[in-house]
């Protein structure tokens, strides 16, 4: 359950950035690399708990997944990877290998965890 540690970092980083932005925070949009070992459900639950008593209380946490992209160390390939799918796993796993030449790769995307944007409802919205 390291989602709580991650969400605590998120709330701590976010609160000072939102100073000066008046209004009620409606939603936090998160981007999560698909290599991250983080459960969306646990992140949302943890956010509800950690945000309690802060300006983020009541805001929803929306999570969008960033697919894996790699650059091959042997050929010029740069792009997505193949996904290993085994029906019995009920789970698709990105295979960190070059889909063109099977060479070793460098990860270019897929390990991120970042706030994309925060939606704020201001007094002006109420009047509208």
């Amino acid at each position: 359950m390291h989602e709580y540690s991650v969400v605590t970092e998120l709330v701590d980083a976010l609160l000072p950035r939102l100073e000066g932005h008046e209004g009620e925070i409606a939603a936090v949009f998160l981007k999560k690399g698909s290599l991250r070992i983080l459960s969306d459900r646990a992140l949302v639950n943890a956010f509800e708990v950690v945000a309690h008593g802060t300006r983020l209380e009541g805001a929803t946490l929306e999570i969008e997944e960033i697919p894996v992209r790699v650059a091959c160390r042997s050929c010029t390939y740069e792009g997505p990877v193949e996904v290993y799918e085994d029906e019995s796993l009920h789970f698709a796993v990105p295979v960190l290998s070059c889909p063109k030449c099977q060479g070793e790769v460098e990860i270019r995307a897929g390990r991120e965890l970042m706030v994309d944007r925060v939606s704020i409802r201001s007094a002006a919205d109420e009047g509208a």
Partner: protein
Amino acid sequence: MHDVRFQGEDILARQLELADRNFKQLKERSVRAVSVMGAIGSGKTTLIERLIVRGASSGLRVGTIAADSAGDDDHVRFLARNAASVNVNTQDDCHLDAHTVQHALEELPLDDIDWLFIENVGNLICPADFPLGTELEMVVISVTEGDDMVRKHPKIFAQTDLVVINKVDLANAVGVDPNRIVSDYAKVNPHGVALQTDALHERGIDELARALGLECTNTLW
């Protein structure tokens, strides 16, 4: 309603920065560091004990950071093998982080250490998202955890470059085929290295030491 946009800074940026600082500090002091992860009872501590002894026989000085929720059992075992060791209690945290490691490094005589093994809290899943600043990461699993370990945690093994399958002496007793773990691992990580050990009886330690480069006695970086 209006949106405040962010410039793509990682939430764990602080952790990544600290991990990078640890990495640079270790490199400057010519210490090669390995993060050792795995479930409770997989045999991490025994493997590290063997590597301390193996390192010493090659003239290498090994340091350790022993992390557990509570107690100093592993730390005491490392000290008994003459390793420079620091004990870390994470209390309710299920993983180490770069910040904790940074403080542990302050307590270690880094100039007198060639290799550093950081034993994470016994937990397969949570440490995976927290880089510590080590050069290498290895995951230890034991056959007693079942031969479906990779199938149950494919995303972790897809990103792990070195897997040690330990307690292979017990494979028959628990009805597990270690080769199934190896072939499952190859499917999700074709470039990974899987080794089989029986740390208690000191089998497979040479191969592991070689895979880590632990037998190299010249300047390491």
